[in-house]
């Protein structure tokens, strides 16, 4: 990718970086200035409305991958590459009823870890924490690296500078405003991303035309229009399960389920899933214009910016730069906030300081956000090239949590030991498949083994569970302030 000549000058890129950095940090400070409690900071006061809830869900799921990898997949796998990518929305759609149930069962919850601790006990909780932190940090590092690489590819700004700026800006406004800042900036970022993608799509249709694009593809690369291309179909199913696993287990989504107002979660996740689905297609089909425009594509992951730059010149490159910067920031900030919550709530408070005051928790959250930023920066700095593969590896782990989460929310009799073994053996089987067969079956195998263990373990050894156990706010209401809640169960 580095060999590609940049579409923007470093000066223009730097000006855009500085301008947007100032905007995000100022907005983050503004929206977070009235945070008074840990609830305000970590779950945005638990009363986020429909518009902000939908936008933050959408923005978090639109990563730099959606805008950069969707065109790459369309270029490499054709139709099913971009349509398969849009199947990532299924995770959001399936999580919609779960978000409502989570909010109802756990009105005072903070993290996905709270659910595992109360539903399955300390062993399952700690296994889950290992999986979730591994995934969270893997995703953070991959986003930080993607930021540096994309900013360099688009504008020629050195990798270390771009990566440092995007990480530093996201840490700064998440630190200043917590989840309120994240959700507020996500709204603005969603508008920018969708407007940018739509404008580029309209221009591509007007300047290239859809039928000439179809004719050129039919003549030069007909396999891209093949509805039965095997590799694309395998990608589709793996992507589907990976996406479901990512959403079901990750605290990024659980913290939103806790933050959205009553009755908002279901509608917000449903609407976000529906309006997310067309974005990878609208961004991805740009790449199919490359054969018509006669563009030589030296690296498939740069096909989107190359087509945009050819269609619109420097203006197109600026559009792509803004879209990518917004997409990166909207996911990085969410991940910083959600991972910090998991570390502070499940690690610090539950393991070491069960009686930590509200002010101590807020302070701990801020320190954790800074530390996460520094650790991510240090790992990103050497620019290890195999980190994308590491993130794919986490597919085996996250898919093994799908069944413990879904069954645990709806099925009273799920055996806690089955949940533990489902995660451990599901992850092991997924890893075996990853190394033994290929990345495209890791999530599928992890989910299948996990399902078999949950079903067999629960049908053979059913367990009774009282849903009321999940509502810790009842205990704290009778025991006094929230800080009286106990340690590990």
């Amino acid at each position, binding site marked *: 990718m580095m060999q590609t000549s940049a579409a923007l000058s470093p000066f223009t890129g730097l000006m855009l970086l500085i301008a947007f950095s100032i905007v995000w940090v100022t907005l983050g400070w503004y929206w977070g200035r009235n945070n008074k409690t840990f609830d305000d900071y970590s779950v945005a006061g638990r009363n986020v409305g429909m518009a902000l809830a939908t936008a933050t869900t959408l923005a978090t799921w639109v990563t730099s991958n959606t805008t950069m990898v969707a065109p790459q997949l369309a270029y490499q796998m054709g139709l099913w590459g971009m349509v398969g990518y849009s199947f990532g929305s299924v995770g959001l759609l399936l999580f919609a009823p779960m978000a409502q149930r989570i909010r109802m069962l756990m009105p005072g919850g903070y993290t996905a870890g709270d659910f595992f601790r109360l539903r399955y006990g300390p062993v399952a909780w700690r296994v889950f924490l290992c999986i979730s932190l591994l995934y969270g940090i893997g995703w953070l590092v991959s986003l930080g690296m993607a930021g540096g690489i994309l900013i360099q590819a688009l504008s020629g700004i050195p990798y270390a500078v771009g990566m440092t700026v995007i990480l530093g800006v996201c840490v700064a406004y998440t630190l200043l405003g917590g989840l309120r800042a994240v959700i507020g900036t996500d709204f603005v970022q969603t508008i920018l991303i969708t407007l940018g993608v*739509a404008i580029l799509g309209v221009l591509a249709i007007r300047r290239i035309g*859809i039928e000439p694009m179809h004719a050129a593809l039919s003549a030069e690369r007909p396999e891209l229009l093949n*509805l039965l291309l095997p590799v694309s179909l395998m990608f589709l199913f793996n992507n589907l399960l990976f996406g479901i696993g990512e959403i079901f287990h990750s605290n990024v989504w659980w913290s939103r389920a806790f933050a959205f107002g009553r009755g908002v979660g279901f509608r917000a996740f449903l609407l976000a899933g529906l309006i997310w689905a067309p974005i990878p297609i609208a961004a991805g089909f740009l790449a199919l214009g490359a054969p018509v425009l006669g563009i030589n594509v030296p690296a498939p992951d740069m096909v989107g910016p190359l087509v945009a730059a050819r269609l619109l010149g420097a203006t197109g490159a600026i559009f792509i730069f803004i879209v990518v910067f917004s997409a990166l920031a909207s996911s990085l900030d969410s991940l910083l906030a959600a991972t910090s919550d998991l570390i502070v709530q499940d690690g610090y408070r539950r393991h070491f300081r069960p009686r930590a005051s509200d002010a101590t928790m807020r302070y701990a959250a801020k320190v954790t956000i800074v530390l996460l930023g520094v650790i991510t920066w240090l790992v990103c700095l050497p620019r290890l090239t195999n980190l994308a593969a590491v993130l794919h590896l986490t597919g085996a782990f996250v898919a093994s949590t799908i069944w413990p989460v879904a069954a645990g929310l709806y099925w009273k009799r799920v055996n806690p030991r089955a949940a533990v073994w489902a995660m451990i053996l599901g992850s092991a089987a997924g890893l075996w498949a990853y190394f033994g067969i290929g990345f495209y079956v890791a999530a599928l195998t992890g989910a299948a083994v996990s399902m078999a263990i949950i079903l067999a373990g629960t049908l053979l050894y059913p367990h009774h569970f009282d849903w009321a156990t999940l509502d810790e706010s009842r205990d704290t209401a009778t025991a006094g302030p929230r800080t009286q809640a106990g340690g590990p169960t």
Partner: protein
Amino acid sequence: MILPATAFTVLVIAAVILTAATPVILLGLLFRDLMKGTSW
């Protein structure tokens, strides 16, 4: 099995229109939430 040109056209145009509609939908929802005082 090659996707016909008409289906390809419908797919692409629908995706672009729906993406373009997203900011309108979100701004409309925000306006409604602000009027009702339920944005946060």
